[in-house]
């Protein structure tokens, strides 16, 4: 999703970062966060649909924001008063993480080989898979991308979407005319006005385009995923303890979903834990949180304050949001997705 205009900034960033990696690695991030009394987590300079938005009263909301909240809750028991959402642009996230102004980057950032090695970053387990998909006019009757062979497709120019789509089409022998426009809004308008048969973007943008259409039912998002990005939460290298806390937070939210513990029923579950594992996760029996230097009730705190993974998804991207996105690859493995918690023992 990187625009060409941002490349110059990326180069600057690279220069800054190569300097940054020379600096000594920071000490224990958890201690720093506790000392400061607040977690510094990423927001956006404006709005990133579904992941970091601002509501009418100026409060952040979104999937990424909820993970920031879950992390702050894990450390402090509540995120109220213990979380600073720092509004930053894409180009700033790595330099600010390296300089210590951010404790963690939760900004739908793809896990790439170069980031994990050269930039000195450490990725958590994958917390969301962003899928790039195709939407088509329903009247064409297409059921998969292959049915659109010979048609035209709108895509924003110069983005990774354009490149990935072209290579997917080539690999599958599908012949389509790619019509690239400079901005997301332009390609969306071109598709909606009938200039193209289909429109390729990542799934939240497609859901928005469908919302913007005159009649939502006239458009269908095809099941083909032509590219997907594994997104992790990102911390500085050489701080395994802090990385553990990030992974435990995510894993707890997935375990809770798997075990049927939701934000709505977590109090009942804590009062009468159905299994020993749930009792342990919610801190009824000790020994879960203390392993990573957190309080034993951190699992309960997270589910109570933010919810399990499904609660968070449905609120921000699913049925409780305007986007009405299905989980797709972001289902638990039992339901055909790629997400999984650690084994609770």
């Amino acid at each position, binding site marked *: 999703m990187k625009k060409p205009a941002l490349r110059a*900034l990326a180069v*600057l*960033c690279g*220069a*800054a*970062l190569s*300097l*940054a990696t020379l*600096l000594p690695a920071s000490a224990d991030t958890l201690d720093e966060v506790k000392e400061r009394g607040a977690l510094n987590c990423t927001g*956006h*300079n*404006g*709005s*990133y*649909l*579904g992941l970091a*938005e*601002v*509501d*009418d*009263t*100026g*409060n*952040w909301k979104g999937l990424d924001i909820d993970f920031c909240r879950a992390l702050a809750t894990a450390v402090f028991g509540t995120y109220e008063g213990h979380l*600073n959402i*720092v*509004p*930053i*642009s894409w*180009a*700033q996230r790595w*330099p*600010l993480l*390296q*300089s*210590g*102004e951010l404790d963690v980057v939760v900004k739908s950032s793809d896990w790439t080989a170069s980031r994990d090695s050269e930039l000195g970053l450490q990725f958590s387990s994958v917390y969301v898979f962003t899928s790039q998909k195709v939407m088509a006019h329903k009247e064409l009757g297409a059921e998969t991308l292959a049915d659109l062979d010979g048609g035209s497709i709108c895509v924003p120019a110069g983005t990774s979407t354009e490149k990935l789509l072209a290579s997917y089409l080539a690999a599958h022998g599908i012949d389509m005319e790619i019509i690239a426009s400079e901005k997301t*809004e332009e390609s969306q308008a071109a598709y909606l006005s009938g200039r193209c048969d289909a429109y390729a973007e990542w799934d939240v943008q497609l*859901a*928005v385009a469908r*919302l*913007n259409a005159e009649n939502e039912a006239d458009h269908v998002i095809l099941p083909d995923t032509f590219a997907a990005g594994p997104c992790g939460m990102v911390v500085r290298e050489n701080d395994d303890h802090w990385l553990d806390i990030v992974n435990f937070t995510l894993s707890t939210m997935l375990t809770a979903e798997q075990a049927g513990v939701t934000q709505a029923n977590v109090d009942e579950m804590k009062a009468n834990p159905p299994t020993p594992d749930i009792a342990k996760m919610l801190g009824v029996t000790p020994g879960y949180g203390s392993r990573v230097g957190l309080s034993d009730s951190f699992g309960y705190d997270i589910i109570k304050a933010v919810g399990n993974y499904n609660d968070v998804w449905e609120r921000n991207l699913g049925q409780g*949001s*305007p*986007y009405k996105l299905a989980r797709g690859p972001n289902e638990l493995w039992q339901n055909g997705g790629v997400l999984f918690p650690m084994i609770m023992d």
Partner: protein
Amino acid sequence: MSEVSGDLPLDAPAGRGSAVYDDLKSRFFPTPLSGLATLAGLALAGWILWHALQWALFDAVFTGPPEACREAAGACWAVIHARWRLMFFGLYPHEEHWRSALACLLFLGVIGASCMPRLWQAGRLAVLWIAGFAGFLLLMRGGVLGLSYVPQEKWGGLTLSIFIFVATVLIGMPLAVALALLRRASLPLVARLAGLLIDGIRSLPLITILFALAVVLPILAPGALGSKLTRVILGMALFFAAYQAEIIRSGIQSLPAGQEEAAKALGLHYWRRMAKVILPQAFRRALPPTISQLAIIFMEVAMVMIVGIFDFLASGNAAYGSGEWNFANVEVYVFIALVYFVFVFSLSRYGAYLERRMRVGK
């Protein structure tokens, strides 16, 4: 353009009405072809105006939920109605918005007051601005007098844009005067260094300066030069000063050499010569480019969005950046443009007033 005087003697000049008629005819309908062009132009302008009005007013939806807009053919001003507080105040805590509003009005009041010639005395202006700044910071930061503390990261919207602009100009203008004088210093080393600094800054894009100060500096020297907002304001001020210094220097150099020589002959020393003779005249001559430089810097404040400062433009982006309101991005941008227009247009009208007052260019 009222009465046609039919009862005047025949040899009197024709009445005003017919003079207007003749004037219109000779200007707009001298030949049938030009007459046709005039009518076509009028029709086109009318057509555009009609459609613009229809979109912006007659078919527009002014309040209500997003669904109300979807059926309407015109503009969806409901997005402004629902999200204006976000645009004006950004991430500032909702229940404390009155403080941000008051701080913004205070600044506008101070700016308005310092535009009045009656207050043009160094002492009065200094008191006004120190009080204005203190009041602004008190309201925005809080932490005293029972006001809750609001960290700088939460400041945003139009209030923040105006704050950055004002701080940039207040720091940048004296710096510009200093740089302009240094560049004209008689010591070649000083003049060269000032020239190097000015030309160095002018050859860097603003975005590079902002990026270096906001992102790179904390890595190289953690904690240097204060918070991100402070660093960004310093960067903007430096950028503004480099351009403004050259504008002031052009004003100084346009003065006849006799001015300075006469002042010297009167026995005035350097500072008095500059303060009483050279700079006032230089500023007068440099007024038109100074006003446009101010307008440019006012609009360039929007660049701070790229380093993650939640200014008016970023807040506008957040205002339409939700699933419900995403379709109304055009309306939000039109609204932002309108607000910018009001500010910059007032600025240039004020510049025109100053020019009349000082009789510049006559």
